[in-house]
């Protein structure tokens, strides 16, 4: 849990009763260790959760921890303010910030909602001039902010932007130009203005420190010449993910310059190649002895996949989620990848392809199956319950699944979790909202009931299909380790949500859309929300009165409402989160903080 929000330096808390027996002595006598030693010891702690726990032991430990912490993780940028962070932690080198609610990825959050990085950067420039790493997810970042970043932190090393918006390739140019010690530039899936690929050419000729470069999701073509020279001179390059503009022959030249790569994202895989080029490319892959992760493969044409075979046996993560391979094509490829731990595919591989996965990849731990035709209701496409069953049968170590399918049955899911009881992340998306078990016509309650009963380690769950309140009774009762729950088009009444809020002791994030949960459900979680990161409800039955009541009863929660256009009392979207920073000052006009 993120204890960041309990910021009072005068806190004297004990972890447990055993400590309290020793506690009085700790107050009276000086610390058993000099501060420096304590700090040194604590500096070896890396997990956020451990550090949070440590900071609660006593005041000395709190101080030692805050002085020794160099990495900070803020799961909700509005839960705390830059000032508070700066006050508590004087020596931060690495910041991870997450902004908008997750449903913003699916266009459920309007533009200009907030989560702007700039004020944070201004504070960091003042307090953390030695900042080295910035990792942002779902934040708004402008080109000005990127330029400010590039100019303010001379030792800046790593920039990672995932699902962010507000900047353009010009901002990237600033980073490339000014960050002389840059080791990482990881730009993923952002909604940005891709003006030109000239940013890549902005890396100076004497710049050699790059280790991670990911521009796969940028559309503009970069200068291949500049890229090739960059790759040549950055001898420590471990991760290279290029965009679609890079063709196969160019890929070969890059691989020849960087055989030490551990992670590769190819460019387009569809170009016409003469046969001797194919041989050269295959050799290039053969020479990449450290390659563990392979992605990209845009428009992968089956006829060139064989060039990958020499590298396949050492692969642990294969991302084919942009390659529309058919089952026979995919089966031939996957047969070469026995050591796969993680696989992302498109459902064009169909159940047969997944059967091959079950046979060929016994070590598989994570599988994600994305839909190639998400809006096409044609049942002849994609994967069904049999594919999932086949994978569960062959891959007993499976613990992470994201599965988009057209149909599912309760029985199949029950068998799947029998095969793989160690699921920590179970995200099932039956794409037609409210669809029942297609064989029995019953709700999918028993499927998710089986999941939560059998998978005791379950941390993350996404439900779908026709679900009554019974599903949520199961979840509330059995999902003791559940931290994140995503619900859409499910439930019958307030009771469902009440069950979840009344159970699930470790729940941190709850996101709900299009469910018949109203004020009674919302208010049943009054006490719980302070122990959670956030709650999102959209297109439910919550009204302004309910939200006002919640805000009134729980002053340490921010209750932000986006109202329904026509109906003044009805609430379209409500976002509730705990915060020590009070209501946010940058809320746009359509967001009402109650």
């Amino acid at each position, binding site marked *: 849990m993120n204890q960041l929000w309990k910021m009072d330096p005068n806190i004297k808390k004990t972890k447990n009763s055993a400590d309290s027996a020793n506690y009085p002595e700790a107050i009276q006598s000086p610390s058993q260790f000099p501060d420096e030693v304590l700090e040194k010891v604590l500096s070896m702690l890396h997990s956020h959760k451990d550090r949070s726990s440590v900071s609660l032991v006593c005041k000395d430990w709190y101080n030692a921890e805050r002085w020794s912490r160099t990495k900070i993780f803020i799961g909700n940028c509005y839960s705390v303010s830059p000032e508070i962070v700066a006050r508590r932690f004087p020596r931060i080198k690495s910041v991870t910030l997450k902004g908008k609610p997750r*449903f913003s*990825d*699916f*266009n*459920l959050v309007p533009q200009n909602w907030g989560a702007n990085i700039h004020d944070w950067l201004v504070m960091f420039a003042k307090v953390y001039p030695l900042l080295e790493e910035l990792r942002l997810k779902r934040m708004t970042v402008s080109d000005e902010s990127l330029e400010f970043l590039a100019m303010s932190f001379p030792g800046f090393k790593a920039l990672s932007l995932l699902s962010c*918006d507000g900047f353009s390739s010009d901002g990237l140019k600033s980073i490339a130009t000014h960050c002389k010690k840059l080791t990482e530039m990881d730009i993923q*899936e*952002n*909604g*940005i*203005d891709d003006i030109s690929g000239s940013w890549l050419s902005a890396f100076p000729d004497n710049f050699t420190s790059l280790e991670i470069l990911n521009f796969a*999701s940028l559309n503009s073509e970069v200068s291949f010449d500049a890229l090739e020279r960059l790759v040549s001179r950055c001898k420590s390059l471990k991760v290279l993910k290029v965009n679609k503009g890079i063709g196969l022959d160019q890929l070969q030249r890059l691989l020849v310059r960087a055989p030490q790569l551990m992670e590769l994202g190819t460019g387009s895989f569809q170009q*016409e190649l003469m046969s001797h080029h194919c041989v050269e490319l295959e050799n290039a892959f053969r020479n990449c002895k450290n390659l563990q992760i392979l992605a990209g493969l*845009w*428009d992968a*044409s089956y*006829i060139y996949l064989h060039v990958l075979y020499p590298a396949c046996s050492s692969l642990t993560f294969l991302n084919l*989620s*942009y390659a*529309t391979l*058919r089952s026979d094509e995919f089966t031939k490829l996957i047969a070469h990848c026995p050591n796969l731990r993680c696989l992302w595919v498109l459902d064009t591989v169909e159940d047969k392809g997944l059967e091959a996965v079950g046979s060929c990849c016994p070590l598989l731990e994570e599988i994600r199956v*994305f*839909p*190639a*035709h*998400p*809006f*096409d*209701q*044609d*049942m*002849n496409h994609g994967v069904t319950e049999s594919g999932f069953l086949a994978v569960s049968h062959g891959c007993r170590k499976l613990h992470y699944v994201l599965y*988009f399918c*057209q149909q599912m049955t309760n029985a199949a899911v029950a068998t799947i979790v029998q095969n793989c009881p160690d699921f920590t992340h179970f995200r099932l*998306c039956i*794409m*037609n*909202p*409210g*669809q*029942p078990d297609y064989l029995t*016509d019953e709700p999918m309650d028993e499927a998710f009931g089986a999941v939560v009963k059998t998978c005791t380690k379950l941390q993350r769950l996404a439900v779908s299909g*026709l679900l009554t309140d019974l599903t949520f009774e199961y979840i509330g009762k059995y999902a003791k380790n559940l931290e994140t729950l*995503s619900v*859409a*088009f499910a439930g*019958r009444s307030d009771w469902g949500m009440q069950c979840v809020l009344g159970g699930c002791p470790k729940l941190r994030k709850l996101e709900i859309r*299009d*469910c*018949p949960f109203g004020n009674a459900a919302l208010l049943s979680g009054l006490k719980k929300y302070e122990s959670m990161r956030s709650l999102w409800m*959209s*297109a*439910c*039955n919550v009204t302004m009165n309910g939200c006002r009541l919640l805000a009134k009863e729980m002053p340490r929660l921010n209750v932000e409402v986006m109202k*329904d*256009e*026509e*109906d003044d009392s*009805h609430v*379209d979207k409500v976002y509730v989160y705990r915060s020590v920073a009070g209501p946010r000052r940058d809320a746009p006009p359509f967001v009402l903080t109650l």
Partner: protein
Amino acid sequence: MSPPQEQYYIGLSEASSVERNSDKISSSSSSSSNICPEDEGNNALNLKETELRLGLPGSQSPERKAGHGVSLFGKDLEEKTSGFKSCVSGAKRGFSDAIDGSGKWDLRMKVSSDVSFGKTEVLFSPGGGKDGASKNINTLQSCLPGLPGKEAGAPPAAKPVEEKNTSSAKDHGSSPASKAQVVGWPPIRSFRKNTLATNLSKNSDAEAKSGPSCLYVKVSMDGAPYLRKVDLKTYCNYAELSSALEKMFSCFTIGQCTSNGLSEQEGLNERGLKDLLHDSEHVLTYEDKDGDWMLVGDVPWEMFICSCKRLRIMRGSEAIGLAPRAMQKFKNQS
């Protein structure tokens, strides 16, 4: 509260949402004609509208009302000549080539490749208990003719979940006329959605794809509002390519052709490229691997398709002095 929910799903009257759809085309047509009135207050829609109307697979052009159709080209569909008809059918062919049976993909291709595409979609969030009329309503979903599979009655609406789900449960064997597209569902990030749309437009028919890859290149024409794509592998020589391009783009040059007395585009002929493109002062050029713009026709066909990255039908005024030579070379080739 329940009945209005169903109106969120454009084109679905209550009756059609419940009954089995044996006649998919008629229901898709009726739903497509519903697009117009409900399509309000959304920027950038007009172009989309006309694009939708251009040859959605399975939809029938005669159903299009005058004035709603391809006014893009200043011509009423009803008045089209046979040549124009071939343009429309050509457009349909192109569209249905490009799309796997769904008008939605078509739209995605046409709208800018801006990754924030999601915001330009006309989608709505089916909230509970509201009159849907004033909400932005999906114009994308309507035309999915010929789709077997689930009945479209399955709705996401919060309140009437129960009765709707049971009805959809019963009807799940029947086929939907159309399915409303819900904002943010299925939950896939915009980047992935956009990328897949582009991918699928290239690899049109997964089943037909076998052997060597296709060679889709963009074809632009100066002054035309949107580009097309052709698979160079489907042609054997320049003549075939030029006649195909003529068919594809003749609708854009109807104005000029008419004034030149060439309103009747009867099928293909050798003079195709020259007549249409040359007479209306257009020249066919292509961008090669080095990024240079070259005149089409200089090199052998096989070499051409290996090096051609995209095609552009240039105005003759920009290709001064080249056109006559193009004709010459073209004659020599064929």
